[in-house]
Structure formats: structure tokens, C-alpha cells
């Protein structure tokens, strides 16, 4: 399987251009002109990518990589990269170290019995190279899939919205309670505030009494009490009247002893 020449012939596309000069290929001795370093770094995603390129495009045998030269040159690049690409330099350096390790181990007498294959650093490197290559291919394939916004657009037209019936906010008793709690909490934090001891039902009946009196000049006292009212309701209504009088909202009058007691809203009295 010697497709070396075939690959070479189609691979005449410049891999990069340096000052307008096409860089046709990465030379086998890995010498990269210093000017080209930046382009070179852009061209390859990292040492794995470079190594893969060398192996695939130049049919370079991992075992035959000229370690001494490569190391020398890598060290020179590392020096240059250190200026602003320290991390990348470290990665190339690491790869160089790995290659040297592999090479040195391969030069040692080959102990025919390899008990644990996984511990062979070359096997590990090959595994990584293959995995990386597989992902590189997968990346290309993914990029070839149709992509929303690039190869097609999603449809979205307008909904012809007629003036919708005004929807009113809904509330529930929890909303009211929470609002009230917020008020109380705030009052506690900010300033002492006297909130009188009163019962809700009295306040509700106060409103009701005022409502009943609205539009009337005055009513007789007994008219404020519904004939069907329970004892509790009668008491609460009476308390409400007293409270309203205290708050100067009602005027209660009796022209003579045991006479008719009239109740009028002071508001009504004033405007009358």
C-alpha cells in the first residue's frame, strides 16, 4: 500500500502563504522558516495535528522521525513561541519529549515479552493520533451538514393579532395578604407606626354603613340594622357606628328623650 506518490501529487495546494509566497508543503526535515511560524501555528491545531499531517501526507514512519533535528528545531520554535504563546509552546515541547521517549525506547533491546501493551508509549501515541484524526474527520462531516442560518432559514411570519380583548390582572387572597405583610414588615423597619387594634369586620361594616347612607339625607338608626341580621352582626354594626362617630364620619342625633335617633353622614350633612 504505497500511495505515497499519489498523495504527493494531489497535495500541491499551498498549505500557507508567507509574504505572498506559497508554502507548498511542510518539509520532511520539519524546518519551518521563522517568518512562517505564525502561519504554521495557524495551519495546525497543535502538535498532534502536525504529527498526523507528517505521517499521513508524507508517509512518515513514526519510528523514523529524525529526532535530533526535530528536537533542535522544536526548541528554536519554543523559544519564539514563548513570547506570546507559552501554552502552545509547552504542548509542542511535550510532544517532542514524547517522541524522543518513544525513539529511545525503541532503540533499546526489544524485550520480546510485552506483558502490558498499554504501557507502550508508542501504542498510546498511535491511539491518540487515530482518535484525533477520527474527530477531525467528524468535525468536517458535521460542518458539511446543513446548518440553520447558514444553509437554510427557519420560517416565521407574523401572527395577525387583532386588538385582543384587554385582559385584566387577576389577584387572589394570597396576593392581598402578601401585600399587607410587606407593608407591615416595611413599617417595622422604617418607622414606628401606630396601627390601631380593630377588627376587620367592624371596618367592613363601617364601609357598609357609609354606603347605606350615601345619597340619603339621614336615616333612622334602626334602619341601619337588617331585620335578618344575627346578633353578632347587630353588635358589629353598632360598633361600626360608634367607630364612625368617633372618626367624625357620622352624626347621630336625637331631638328628645326616647325620640327617633337619626344617623347622617357628616359628609352628607356638609354638602347638604
Amino acid at each position, binding site marked *: 500500500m504505497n500511495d505515497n506518490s499519489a498523495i504527493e501529487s494531489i497535495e500541491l495546494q499551498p498549505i500557507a502563504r508567507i509574504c505572498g509566497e506559497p508554502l507548498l508543503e511542510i518539509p520532511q526535515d520539519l524546518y519551518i522558516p521563522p517568518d512562517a511560524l505564525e502561519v504554521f501555528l495557524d495551519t495546525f491545531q497543535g502538535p498532534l495535528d502536525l504529527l498526523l499531517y507528517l505521517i499521513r501526507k508524507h508517509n512518515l514512519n513514526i519510528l523514523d522521525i529524525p529526532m535530533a533535528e526535530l528536537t533542535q528545531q522544536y526548541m528554536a520554535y519554543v523559544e519564539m513561541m514563548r513570547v506570546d504563546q507559552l501554552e502552545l509552546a509547552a504542548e509542542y515541547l511535550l510532544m517532542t519529549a514524547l517522541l524522543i521517549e518513544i525513539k529511545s525506547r525503541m532503540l533499546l533491546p526489544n524485550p520480546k515479552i510485552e506483558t502490558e501493551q498499554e504501557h507502550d508509549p508508542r501504542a498510546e501515541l498511535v491511539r491518540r493520533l487515530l482518535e484525533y484524526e477520527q474527530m477531525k474527520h467528524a468535525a468536517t462531516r458535521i460542518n458539511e451538514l446543513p446548518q440553520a442560518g447558514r444553509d437554510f*432559514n*427557519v*420560517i*416565521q*411570519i*407574523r*401572527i*395577525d*393579532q*387583532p386588538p*385582543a380583548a384587554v*385582559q385584566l*390582572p*387577576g*389577584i*387572589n*387572597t394570597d*396576593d*392581598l*395578604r*402578601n*401585600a*399587607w*405583610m*410587606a*407593608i*407591615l*414588615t*416595611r*413599617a*417595622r423597619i*422604617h*418607622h*414606628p*407606626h*401606630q*396601627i*390601631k*387594634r*380593630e*377588627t*376587620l*369586620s367592624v*371596618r*367592613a361594616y*363601617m*364601609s357598609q354603613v*357609609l*354606603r347605606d*347612607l*350615601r345619597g340619603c339625607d339621614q336615616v333612622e338608626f334602626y334602619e341601619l340594622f337588617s331585620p335578618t341580621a344575627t346578633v*353578632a352582626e347587630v353588635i*358589629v354594626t353598632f360598633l361600626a357606628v360608634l367607630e364612625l362617630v368617633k*372618626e*367624625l*364620619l357620622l352624626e347621630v342625633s336625637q331631638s328628645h328623650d326616647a325620640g327617633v335617633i337619626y344617623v347622617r*353622614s*357628616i*359628609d352628607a350633612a*356638609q354638602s347638604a
Partner: protein
Amino acid sequence: MSAPLMPLNQLDTPDPLSPEKVKRVLEAALLTTSEPLPISELRKLFNLELNATVLSKLLEEIREKWLDSSVELVSVASGWRFQTKADIQPYLERLTPPKAPRYSRAALETLAIITYRQPVTRGDIEEIRGVSVSSSVLKTLMTRGWIEAVGHRNVPGKPALFATTQHFLDDLNLRSLEELPPLEEMRSLIDSSAKNQDLPFEIPEAHD
């Protein structure tokens, strides 16, 4: 298929630009935009090589083609656009129920004060909340029919006294104000949130 409308530009568009193709492109462009597209903009689709008259005619044809559909092509002030027809609206609303509006905190607190302290004047509400109450808040609640002025306090300025209405109770599914969360329960909640210090005010109690 009709004759090409303009010479084929091999590099740019591989197939001849028949009226059918132009209509396909127009449809796609109009379907991908919710904003109306004026003819001047639509001409860009064809590198300005088709004039407005041709496009108008084709747009009219597209409009007719879509007449029976649930979507219509309309020409509005700023251009052409596709939109759904009104009879589809009720269905679409089931998909995205309109978000229920909410009352502001100011409105809710005002309502709570009127509910629990009624009848109260605007001044009372402001005193309790510690901030002024905007007229719009009161107006909102009045328009809703939840509060009403039940009288006036006999002090200078004769401020209106507000109370909640029967309609408010109805809307909250309550038979009477007594069914509201009792204030006593609130006290325990507040107490539990207050760490050490004594409350600087007396907590109102609900008891008959």
C-alpha cells in the same frame, strides 16, 4: 415553465430565473421575515435585475395563490408580508396563552390597605405605606370596580373614603371580607420573621 426573465448568471444562480423561480424566492424571503419587505428590498434578492413592475405582478400572483390558505400575503404601508388570517387566531392563542398582566406592588398594597383598613382616605394609605399614592393606582382599582368612594372624611379638603365593593368580593370568590386571610395569622408570620426586637407597633388582630 415560462421563459427566463433574465439571462442566467452561471456563477451566481445555477438555474434560469423563471417567473416560477422568482416566485419561489419571493415566497421564501417573505416567509422568513416577520417584518414587511418593500419592493425595493425584494429587488435585492435578484441583484436589482428585476424591476418593481415585474415584482409587483408576481407578488399579486402569489397573493392570489395563497387566498384559500390560513395565511395571507398583504401589502401594508412598509411593504409586503405574510400574516395569519383572523379566523386562525383563536387556535393560535391556545398555543401561547397571552401572559396574564399583573398589578404593581403599589396597586396591590393600596388594595390591601383599603381592604383591611376600610374606609380609608388616600392620606391614610399614604401614611401606612410611607409613600405617596398615585392617582392612577386608585383610578385603576376604581375602574376595575373593586373600590369605591363611600363618603368623605370631615377634615379640611374632605378627602374621599375608599372601601372595597361587592364586585371585588365576587371577583375574589369571597362571600364576605371575613373570608380573607385573618390578620392574626399574619402576626405569627411576621413574628417568626422578626428575630429579636419588639415590634414598634401593635399588630392588629382579627377577632370578633
